[in-house]
């Protein structure tokens, strides 16, 4: 098995007196899809925000390609090849697909004047999007006109185009319909086959089970279990997410 590309050891995070994470360990290897499962409030979001540089952990170690790293801002993670696709933010609805795709990484011409090379940017956007079976009417189309699944795909395509080695997907399927979900899961599968390490956050066991190689279940800020695909059933995962035991019966 390959060495993990990113490894987090015993991560703790407090917000004031609230302990959000109490010693969570996690790793992911290239070409693997590692699903992070947990009910609302389990600490999934806090954990990936630490991985993507939004928060700094209170304590714990983070290794990227075997070396100790500390991210002080999201851009640090991004420049290291750790790209996060958030469910709610990342795309600006009023801006065109091209402007969103190249936001912060605009190709320029004209030297010092830093002219945005729209022609090149439009061409790349159309090409990259068609690789994901999304045919844009025009690259000037506002992102707001795309469906939720298409927006996720633009965000994933953008991350991959700019050389993401680790792709963190925050609940990418939670707001999507059946068909769009299938498209996004298909994309995840393709990314994994390209050798990208995928961290897939969800509370939908069926979505996770269909693409995941490994599963980590969080509960109340702690790791409940980590298991390989062949060792668990969706029911096991479901029960673990419900608090580490079979759902309590009503007469208890």
């Amino acid at each position, binding site marked *: 098995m390959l060495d993990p590309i990113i490894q987090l050891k015993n991560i703790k995070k407090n917000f004031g007196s609230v302990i959000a994470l109490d010693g969570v360990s996690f790793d992911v290897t290239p070409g693997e899809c590692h699903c992070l499962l947990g009910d609302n409030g389990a600490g999934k979001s806090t954990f990936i925000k630490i991985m993507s540089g939004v928060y700094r952990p209170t304590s714990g170690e983070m290794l990227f390609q075997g070396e100790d790293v500390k991210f002080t801002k999201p851009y640090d993670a991004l420049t290291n090849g750790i790209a996060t696709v958030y469910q709610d933010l990342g795309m600006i609805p009023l801006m065109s697909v091209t402007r969103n795709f190249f936001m912060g990484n605009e190709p320029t011409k004209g030297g010092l*004047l830093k002219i945005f090379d729209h022609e090149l940017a439009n061409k790349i956007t159309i090409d990259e999007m068609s690789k994901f079976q999304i045919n844009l009417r025009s690259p000037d189309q506002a992102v*707001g006109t795309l469906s939720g699944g298409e927006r996720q795909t633009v965000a994933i395509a953008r991350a991959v185009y700019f050389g993401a080695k680790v792709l963190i997907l925050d609940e990418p399927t939670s707001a999507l319909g059946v068909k769009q979900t299938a498209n996004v899961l298909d994309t995840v599968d393709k990314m994994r086959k390209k050798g990208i390490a995928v961290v897939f956050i969800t509370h939908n066991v069926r979505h996770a089970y269909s693409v995941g190689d490994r599963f980590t279940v969080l509960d109340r800020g702690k790791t409940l279990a980590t298991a390989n695909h062949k060792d668990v059933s969706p029911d096991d995962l479901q029960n673990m997410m419900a608090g580490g035991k079979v759902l309590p019966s009503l007469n208890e």
Partner: protein
Amino acid sequence: MANDERIKKTNFLQKTLMRPEFGSICGVILVLIFFLLIARDNGMFNPDGIRNWSVVSAQFAIIAVGACLLMIAGEFDLSVGSMIGFSGMVLAIGSIHYGLPVWFSILIAYVLSIALGAFNGFLVIKTRLPSFIVTLAFLYILRGLTIFMSVTTTDKTILSGMKPLADADWLAPIFGGESLTGLFRWMGDNGWIEVFSRGTNEGLPVVSGIPNLILWAIGLVIFGHWLLTKTRFGNWIYASGGDANAARYAGVPVTKVKILMFMFTAFCACTFAMIQVTEFGSAGADRGLLKEFEAIICVVIGGALLTGGYGSVIGAGLGAIMFGVVQQGLFFSGAESSLFRVFLGGLLLIAVITNTYIRRLIVGTDD
């Protein structure tokens, strides 16, 4: 290409409708037609009439360009009017009271106002308070300081006598002077434009040239439009105003972009003041009253969204033309001047409603 039959085909009309400038182009045309019909006989469209409303429109345009880029970047500056009073007074006190060279006073005015703009921006970013409230505070602070400064140094709140000083200076004429005077005289000599028929100016054209402030306005609109739509920095302006967090996560230096836009707004306000003082020959501590709102009105009429992330500098320029034409047109047509405000308020309301509708059309949601 897989066509989704449920996506409505957008036709040319709808596409045009979605351009931020569209509303303001229609508005300018409508307003011009309206006044062509009612005020033509009153000289509004004679050379000096055109010059009259062009100058007023250009004044609005100069401050609207700054306000427009700042609004697209997601912020407001309500201290623009006070900044105009302040920087004009700095110029006048420097050159009249302390006898500094005019060019040097202009330089000081620019440095001080741009620094204040940066401080405004810095406060907004650091406190994370809405720029509305921070710059509202500055509206009062700066106005008060300006009056205090002029009263304590000169015992007056209006300083006149700038005209001869400005005329003798090498830098001042680029603000208050005129260009293409030769061309206009030549056109007058050929009888193409109206000339004075008596008096000391007999034989000279009624309109002697293009006021430089109009060139400033055109220059600033072109620069602003180029910056916003053609450069990498322009994409950062859109992104900072569209969603500052998303922009930050993608590596856009949002803080820098916003502070620079506050500085640019201050630059525009200062330019307005330099022109006003050198052209009219006096500065007043109460100058620029309500200008911040007039700038914002031009920007909104021009199709920008108050919430940021969307708008057009050309639109803002057209908004300024509309503003100027309406204001002077009502004057030319002899209408009761109080009606101007009613008209303006109505225009603003229509613009905001249209903009909100267009945004829904783009984003396709009901929020």
